[in-house]
């Protein structure tokens, strides 16, 4: 049997080269070798991180990153036995009312899940009051709002304002084609994610701003 370091490197490679099924022999071999699930999880995420960096430098396509997310998800499901985690930062995500475009939101939600956030996905075309309720009920630390249409994005403003009154400790991050950082700031959001590649860093920064009480 190969040693632990080699097995973990193989797992990492399987993710970023995506030339094998995670659930196949590579993962089985690591589990049979008695490697701790946390170490396996770390290796899977390292593989994902590798692809994310390569996407940032335009070496791969977004489709490569999504395929990689599928691989990581399969791997994480294998080591958790398909059970949903009760740990992780609670995060509510959805597309604002009137907007049927959910692909971007689906991608972002999957990235959050992959990185261990406890994601409450409200779907698309979600009325503002449901976001407010979702944040309160799930004690969410983060609210991620998406809009792909200039006509629906204006709804974000009132949602942010209401969430800031009722759940002031929740960091609100916004994204979507018609939104930009200036708009996000003017609406009172705590962060803006331009792409799926940077959403993790932006979310972390938004959480810290809210925690430290630092204005954006």
């Amino acid at each position, binding site marked *: 049997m190969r040693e632990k370091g080699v097995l973990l490197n193989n797992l990492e490679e399987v993710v970023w080269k995506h030339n094998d099924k995670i659930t196949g022999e590579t993962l089985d071999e690591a589990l049979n070798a008695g490697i701790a699930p946390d170490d396996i999880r770390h290796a899977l995420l390292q593989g994902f991180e590798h692809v994310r960096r390569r996407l940032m430098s335009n070496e791969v396509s977004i489709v490569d990153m999504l*395929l990689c997310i599928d691989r990581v998800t399969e791997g994480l499901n294998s080591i958790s036995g398909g059970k949903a985690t009760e740990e992780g930062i609670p995060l509510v995500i959805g597309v604002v009312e009137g*907007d049927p475009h959910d692909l971007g939101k689906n991608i972002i939600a999957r990235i959050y899940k992959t990185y261990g956030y406890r994601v409450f996905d409200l779907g698309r075309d979600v009325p503002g009051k449901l976001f407010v309720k979702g944040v309160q009920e799930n004690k969410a630390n983060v609210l991620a709002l998406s809009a792909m249409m200039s006509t629906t994005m204006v709804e974000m403003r009132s949602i942010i304002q209401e969430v800031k009154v009722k759940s002031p400790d929740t960091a609100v991050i916004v994204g979507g084609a018609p939104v930009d950082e200036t708009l996000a700031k003017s609406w009172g959001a705590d962060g803006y994610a331009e792409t799926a590649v940077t959403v993790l860093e932006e979310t972390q920064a938004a959480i810290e701003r809210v925690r430290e009480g630092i204005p954006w």
Partner: protein
Amino acid sequence: MVTVEPELSNSLIQKLRNNTLCKLGYDSTKAMNPEIEKMLNEAIIEAENTLSPKGIYHILPVLATNSDGIHTEAGIIKSTLFRRLVEMCKGERLIVFMVTTLGEELDIAYESEESLPRQLILHTIGAELIELVTDEVEMDWKTRVVKPQGLQCSWRFSPGYCDWDLEGQGVIFEALDPGLIGVQLTSHFVMRPSKSISAISIIAKEVPFPAPCAFCGKRNCPWRRLPRRKHKSLVS
């Protein structure tokens, strides 16, 4: 009112493949993973075998233009930028109203797809294909009306572009009966099936610019279709 059912010819499918690859970010510097290539090929074959794109159009004269917009029998097109383009056109001015769709099959396939890369590929194929289908519908009215009479026309212009609010869908749906090709509007003026396009074009003896960008002073607009410098003299 004319309905068109564009054929998914081999050359159109080849264009679709090239455009989809480009949109997904593949160029000569990036090798495509065989699994992704397989997904793409399967999705294109599925699109080819299951989709029946349709289009409908109707041509109406411009009755008048004023600060409210462009007046037609179907209602008022409320875009100052497009109105300025129409006002500069010479000869009789006609507005083509059109709606095209790929039908609901692609929406159903997307909804039932769990895999994110497949979702993205389906979405991109749909977005590219509906543009190509709309080009074919445009070709139909250009062949019947524009070319035989030696007229000119603009590029298509849709509600949500520039200063034309999405509510502008109302005038297009008044001019046409998109229900005939299975297209409906939601209360937020979004079309279902999702891979549908609604648009207008202006036809006249002389159309000075293909798009109203010539009248827009907005800097760094990501949707600008005409180079700014070339038309600077027209920007107020």
